[in-house]
């Protein structure tokens, strides 16, 4: 114990030096996977080259994801005597310019800065807003994401300096029952999507008697459109690992396993390093901190199966079997991995536990609303202006999230998909819904792991339903009849509709299939796979009917159900669409109204994207309409 406290004291001192450098400036670069996708590694090279070229001395630290991914790549600089200043959408050239200006000339180029992490005075002095006052960040409450983007995820000392592992130390001094009590008071519900009270699982697992127990962290974030777990692990891995450690101690487990999907190699690398560092500091292994508690954490990678996010399928996967969910009871807390009691929780759940232990359960209650306490991370992506990773108290409305935090959509808002591929599409009239586990279910969706996909009028709900069911069909394990065949029936029907072969009875077929799947499937995947389709039919019935009866896709997505037309009254004759059309389907001279030949058009949308006047719209498909009329006569 003394050992860790001493280390922490030193770490705090070092952190202070970093936050307020005396002579060596510090450069931070957001290089989690999203940052890298935006080109952060090129920026890193540019920074190093610049430092070499100008013989500049600076510490360069790669940090994780701070949240607003639409601003990536993000580069921060702390000059001695100044707070940390953040620059957004940094290209290699821009980085070079900023580094040279700041480090050589002392000019931090306030006009290029996005935000800073200092005090109000600095804002007054420079005009740069505080980073956390930016519209996207201001309404957020950062509990789990507290360290993300600010610390070096590969340095355990940074974590310690932020109070890391004090939660664990407190747990060691208390007894397991008190830990569980603290969790109960906090009201933490499983953040993987089901919302089961966390303390109950921990209690069940503690009560189960066995010669060994496991703690498993579900980091198999399979929801397309969700990356909260990835960001957390890449930015602050110790938060998750400390949560697992506390879980192990409380339930009496001796082996922890973190199951990460294979598509997250950076997360795996960061975890490996973090675990090594825990060993070095005596936080893993035998007789941890002299408490008599033995625990080790192993990393296991998933192999590309969304269904392995379901806890019993995950356990099957760990046992070396096909990832097919098993009926419950028995529950994993009683009879899990290899038959032993297993505490299995989502990454974010474990990531939240340390702060609850550190600050107390009551502290957590102050966020959110009764029954849905605390905060949750969400990935806000799609057609919204400010995309990224956010953290808000539960109970905030969808409207606040999309419009206040997300900055709204450029084109008119149409729908929001919540909860991942097993969640529903909600329309504008549901935007006043507060995000809670119950309300999401009532609206025909789910909270899920936190994906929020924003769609505008250029998204077709029928196409989205088809996309999601296609996903479910591919990811279904195939074991039980309703899911295996039901997803296929829904897929066949939606494909038919999207091709223009929809029939009146298709809606009923889909409703019946959805009902059977929801009621009779073995696991959550089958039970919820029809949600996008069902909610789509519930809130956007007119769109489905237009596809079926009128053979028309208003959003101009389903290629067989529309054709493009240039509106004469809006066309300015700028010629942009002519130049991007790869099949020469548009003709027109400058300043003259352009014409689009529907028979050559391949519906690639390139022209729509460049037209500043929104002059190109989708209209019902005249060439195929006659064909369908004929078919209707026959049928």
């Amino acid at each position, binding site marked *: 114990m003394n050992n860790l406290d001493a280390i922490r004291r030193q770490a705090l001192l070092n952190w202070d030096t970093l936050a307020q450098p005396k002579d060596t400036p510090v450069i931070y670069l957001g290089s989690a996977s999203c940052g890298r*996708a935006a*080109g952060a590694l090129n920026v890193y090279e540019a920074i190093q080259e610049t430092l070499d070229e100008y013989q500049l001395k600076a510490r360069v630290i790669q940090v994780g994801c701070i949240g607003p991914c*639409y601003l990536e790549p993000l580069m921060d600089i702390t000059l001695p005597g100044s707070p940390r200043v953040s620059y957004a959408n940094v290209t290699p050239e821009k980085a070079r310019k900023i580094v040279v200006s700041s480090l050589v000339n002392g000019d931090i180029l306030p006009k290029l800065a996005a935000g800073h992490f200092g005090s109000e005075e600095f804002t007054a002095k420079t005009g740069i807003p505080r980073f956390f006052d930016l519209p996207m960040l201001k309404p957020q409450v950062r509990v789990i994401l507290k360290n993300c983007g600010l610390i070096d995820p590969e340095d355990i000392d940074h974590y310690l300096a932020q109070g890391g592992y004090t939660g664990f130390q407190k747990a060691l001094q208390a007894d397991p029952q008190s830990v569980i009590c603290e969790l109960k008071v906090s009201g933490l519900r499983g953040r993987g999507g089901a919302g089961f009270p966390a303390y109950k699982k921990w209690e069940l697992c503690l009560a189960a008697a066995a010669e060994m127990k496991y703690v498993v962290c579900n980091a198999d974030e399979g929801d397309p459109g*969700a990356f909260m777990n990835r960001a957390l692990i890449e930015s602050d891995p110790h938060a998750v690992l400390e949560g697992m450690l506390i879980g192990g101690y409380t339930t009496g487990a001796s082996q922890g396993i973190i199951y990460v999907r294979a598509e997250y190699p950076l997360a795996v690398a960061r975890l490996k390093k973090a675990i090594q560092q825990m060993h070095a500091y005596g936080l893993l292994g035998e007789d941890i901190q002299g408490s008599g508690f033995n625990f080790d954490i192993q990393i296991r990678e998933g*192999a590309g199966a969304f269904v392995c996010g379901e806890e019993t399928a995950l356990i099957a996967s760990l046992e070396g079997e096909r*990832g097919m969910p098993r009926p419950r009871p028995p529950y994993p807390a009683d009879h899990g991995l290899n038959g032993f009691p297993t505490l299995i929780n989502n990454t974010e759940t474990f990531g939240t536990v340390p702060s609850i232990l550190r600050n107390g359960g009551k502290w957590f209650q102050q966020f959110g609303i009764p029954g849905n306490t605390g905060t949750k991370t969400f990935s806000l992506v799609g057609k919204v202006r400010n995309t990224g990773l956010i953290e808000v108290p539960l109970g905030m409305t969808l409207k606040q999230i999309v419009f206040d935090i997300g900055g709204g959509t450029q084109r008119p808002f149409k729908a929001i998909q919540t909860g991942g591929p097993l969640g529903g599409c909600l329309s504008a009239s549901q935007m006043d819904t507060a995000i809670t586990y119950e309300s999401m279910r009532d609206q025909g969706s789910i909270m899920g792991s936190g994906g929020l*996909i924003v769609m505008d009028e250029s998204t077709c709900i029928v196409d989205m339903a088809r996309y999601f069911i296609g*996903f479910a069909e591919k*990811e279904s394990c195939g074991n039980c009849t309703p899911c295996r065949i039901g997803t296929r029936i829904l897929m066949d029907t939606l494909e038919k509709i999207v091709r223009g072969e929809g029939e009146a009875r298709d809606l009923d077929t889909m409703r019946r299939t959805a009902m059977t799947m929801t009621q009779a499937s073995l696991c959550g995947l089958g039970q919820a796979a029809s949600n996008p389709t069902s909610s789509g039919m519930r809130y956007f019935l007119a769109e489905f009917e237009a596809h079926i009866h009128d053979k028309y896709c208003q959003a101009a997505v389903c290629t067989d159900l529309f054709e493009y037309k240039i509106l004469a009254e809006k066309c300015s004759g700028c010629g942009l669409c002519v130049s991007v059309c790869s099949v020469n389907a548009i003709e027109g001279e400058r300043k003259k109204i352009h014409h689009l030949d529907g028979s050559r058009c391949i519906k690639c949308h390139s022209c729509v994207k460049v037209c500043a006047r929104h002059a190109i719209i989708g209209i019902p498909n005249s060439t195929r309409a006659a064909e369908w009329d004929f078919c209707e006569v026959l049928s």
Partner: protein
Amino acid sequence: MDDSLTADRTTDSATFEGFSGRPDELLSLLQYCQNQKGFISQENVREIACFLKVSEARVFGVASFYAQFRFLKPGDHQIRVCMGTACHVQEGDQLSHETQSLLGVGLGETTPDGRFDYQEVACLGCCAQASVVEIDGKIYGKMTREKLRKLLEAYEQP
């Protein structure tokens, strides 16, 4: 004179370093083999089955369940287009069609010269950078069809 009593067994079971032969190591063993050559061969399946003392059907049944494992030799460069929701909304479908037509291959196929193989992946987790394409492990965000064409040209050059 041949004194030997026992046959020289070419079917001796393989050993895998770092593994102890427990059945729950199956997935890790498959990942190990796939990391060596980029795919799982019939020989691998036989070796793993011998090592774990389970049947080849069991090994194959597990391997064929997971999308990560492939049984055919991959191309020199692996192209993966993300088919996640955010990418789909940002016209990931277009990218998928474009790749297939540029390379002349379908999903899961390798170009005849063995240079590229094309796969789709459910989600790479970089949703705010949609649409995303991964080539040989390197992630490219905010991809458009033009950008993709240029990128592939860069890889085409030896």
